């Protein structure tokens, strides 16, 4: 219990400290808070790894009266990935501020917003209560919208407002579904709902919740808010927005369909979810291909990469016994969430370094920059390998697991999406790579400290390491995994 309490309260306390403390103590408080929360996330993961899922009944009240929390393998894997990305973003923000000297407004706001976002993500990762998840989502959306708008530029504020409208619509739809569920069953706990007596309104409730969560996850065709929002934020904030924020609503979707109401799945609904995912892979990839700015390419790539996860809905469990690994598609999708998080954060942080060096992220201005910033160029290439799904990266493991499930279940159409998406990713990442590694000599880029350049390199290396040492994360994800993930929806 103690490590879970630390994971939930440390980022909150640090956020409150960064608001209340005087100016000179804020960055230090944020750094200490980030370090302590990183340790807490690892601590929870170690305990879950050794002893299995950990429950926490808040206030000593059992559901349906109280709120139950549980850290399972999926929660702690997301918790550790989040902690690594958050710590990297905090470091990168400190280095960026040391170089550029942000205005007093950003210097005040960035720390509480990052830490509040972190606290909300941790709360969502372990919550088993549908309404508590709603409150967590609201906290995530509000801090994320503020991070989009924080640069103060007109286009950033406009992108933030558009994001806010989508996020609030999503919240309302989700909340309507929660209210219907509660009035039909008188409970909100995921495990209690799994054992409920189904009623006719359940399909509507699940449909409303799913629609709301899809808007927040930016699945095609609800993706239009994402690219301008993620591209407009400062690079460390973009890293959090793209790598972490959509994963919270995605996790709730997975928990709803695989844990709370697996009995509601129909062939048509699974085909719809998988089909929208496939369209996201294609459409996000095509739009990434035609962008002229690095941050927009990386942002459209998020639309495509999130699409893969939805293939798990139709693929999960297909042809059970014929599968080489149980729950291969489900585990593959979770691998995709983890490796995309690390690689995408790394890519946005490298974009921040390029912008610090040449003051622009237009592909034409980045030509030959890998020669001046070899560490950052290498980090970009490593994270590109993960996003393309090439071996030995975590992205490869993810696609390999989903691909084998698709073949075992003889659903070759989804396999074609996986292959096609990989080819599109190779195409849209080739353009920035070709620019960075071209033989041109860049016009005197500003020097960027090596320790700043090391931050995205670490993240990219971890994304590759997720594939190199895939056995440990694979086993971690199986702790407390729902049976439906192996049997299929």
């Amino acid at each position, binding site marked *: 219990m103690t490590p879970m309490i630390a994971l939930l309260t440390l980022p909150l306390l640090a956020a409150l400290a960064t608001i209340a403390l005087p100016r000179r103590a804020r960055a230090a408080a944020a750094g200490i808070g980030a370090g302590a929360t990183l340790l807490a996330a690892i601590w929870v993961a170690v305990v879950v790894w050794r002893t299995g899922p950990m429950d926490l009944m808040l206030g000593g009240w059992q559901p349906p009266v109280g709120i139950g929390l549980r850290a399972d393998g999926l929660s702690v894997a997301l918790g550790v990935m989040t902690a690594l990305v958050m710590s990297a973003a905090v470091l990168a923000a400190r280095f960026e501020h040391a170089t550029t000297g942000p205005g007093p407004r950003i210097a005040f706001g960035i720390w509480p917003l990052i830490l509040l976002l972190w606290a909300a993500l941790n709360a969502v990762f372990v919550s088993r209560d549908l309404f508590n998840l709603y409150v967590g989502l609201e906290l995530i959306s509000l801090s994320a919208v503020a991070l989009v*708008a924080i640069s103060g530029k007109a286009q950033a*504020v406009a992108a933030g407002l558009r994001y806010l409208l989508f996020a609030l619509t999503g919240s309302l739809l989700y909340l309507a579904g929660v209210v219907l569920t509660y009035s039909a069953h008188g409970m909100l706990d995921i495990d209690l709902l799994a054992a409920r007596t189904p009623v006719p309104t359940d399909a509507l409730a699940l449909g409303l919740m799913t629609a709301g969560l899809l808007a927040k996850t930016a699945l095609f065709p609800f993706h239009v808010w994402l690219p301008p929002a993620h591209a407009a934020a400062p690079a460390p904030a973009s890293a959090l927005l793209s790598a972490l924020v959509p994963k919270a609503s995605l996790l709730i979707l997975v928990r709803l369909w695989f844990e709370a109401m697996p009995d509601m799945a129909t062939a048509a609904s699974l085909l719809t979810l998988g089909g929208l995912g496939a369209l996201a892979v294609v459409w996000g990839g095509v739009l990434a291909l035609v962008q002229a700015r690095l941050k927009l390419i990386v942002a459209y790539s998020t639309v495509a990469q999130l699409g893969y996860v939805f293939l798990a809905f139709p693929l999960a469990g297909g042809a059970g016994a014929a599968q080489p690994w149980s729950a291969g598609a489900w585990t593959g999708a979770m691998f995709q969430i983890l490796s995309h998080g690390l690689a995408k954060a790394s890519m946005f942080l490298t974009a921040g370094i390029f912008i610090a060096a040449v003051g622009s992220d237009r592909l034409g201005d980045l030509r030959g920059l890998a020669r001046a910033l070899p560490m950052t160029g290498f980090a970009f290439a490593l994270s590109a390998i993960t996003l393309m799904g090439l071996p030995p990266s975590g992205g490869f493991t993810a696609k390999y697991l989903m691909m084998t499930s698709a073949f075992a279940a003889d659903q070759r159409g989804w396999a074609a999406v996986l292959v096609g998406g990989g080819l599109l990713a190779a195409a849209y990442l080739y353009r920035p790579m070709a620019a960075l590694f071209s033989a041109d000599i860049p016009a005197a880029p500003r020097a960027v400290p090596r320790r700043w350049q090391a931050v995205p390199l670490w993240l990219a290396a971890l994304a590759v390491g997720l594939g190199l040492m895939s056995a440990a994360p694979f086993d971690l994800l199986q702790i407390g995994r729902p049976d439906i993930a192996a049997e299929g929806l």
Partner: protein
Amino acid sequence: MSAALDIALCALILGVGLATVVGRGVFRAVIFFITYGLLLAIGWARLGAIDVALAEAAISAGLTGALLLAAQGRLRTMKTEAEPPARARLPAALAGLSVACVLGWAWFALPVDQAPDLSQVLPESGVGNPVTAVLLNFRAWDTLLESVVLLTALVGVWMLAQDADWDAALGPRFHARPNGVLANFGRILPPIGLIFGVYLVWAGADDTGGAFQGGTVLAAVILLAMMAGALQPPSVAHPVWRVGLVLGPLVFVLAGIAGALLSDGFLTLPLTIAKPAILTIEAALSLSIAATLALLVIGPPDDQGQDA
């Protein structure tokens, strides 16, 4: 008689709701929205949900109305009061109508309400008002996160300031004519509001009321005192205000941790000290909610000296 009243009330709620979303003009829509909130509050009161009615009147009609009016005022001074594009209206109306229709169907399809029976556990919560027991004890984690949501919204609003204005006082400058109506009300109403707000927090333990409702009334007191010139809006640098903003969530988190260290677990309140503990948390929360809501309404630091 009461049936006639209810039917008239329902018709008014629907009519005013419709008037809010159709037609032109932001100011018009805001005024109808405030009316709509007040009518809904009466509706809740008719249903016997007095706590919800109070929250609806204070937060939805009162506070949200004030926020919308402030936003409309800013749009007017910037001369950018744009109408939403006409092509968005039909899809928005259809989407709204279809959600309303399926929810209307659900009303008939739903089984009888299945809310969990709290009568067994209520005596163990330390308070007599079931709403307060849910908010501060059974589901305290929700309430703790909600108080942090308010704080996040305020930090987000501050991020909309101009960098050059950051050290200025928050919000627009208010000018009240000395001995004018506003200045006089600014002297008379705050003491009354103060007593009413504190009473709502205190009574919330066993009767109607609570930290959010009381905090909203206190926020109104702060706003009135600021508009009447009796209280100067602070700047972000003001340490007392910043501590006031975080006090409620901080006391709440620390109380939760104390439950883990001294009692059975995180956010656990032993019955012997449950009531004083809940009142302490609510008092701190009310202060922070009042400060946060008041600062949300007056807005980010603004050096333009725009008149409100």
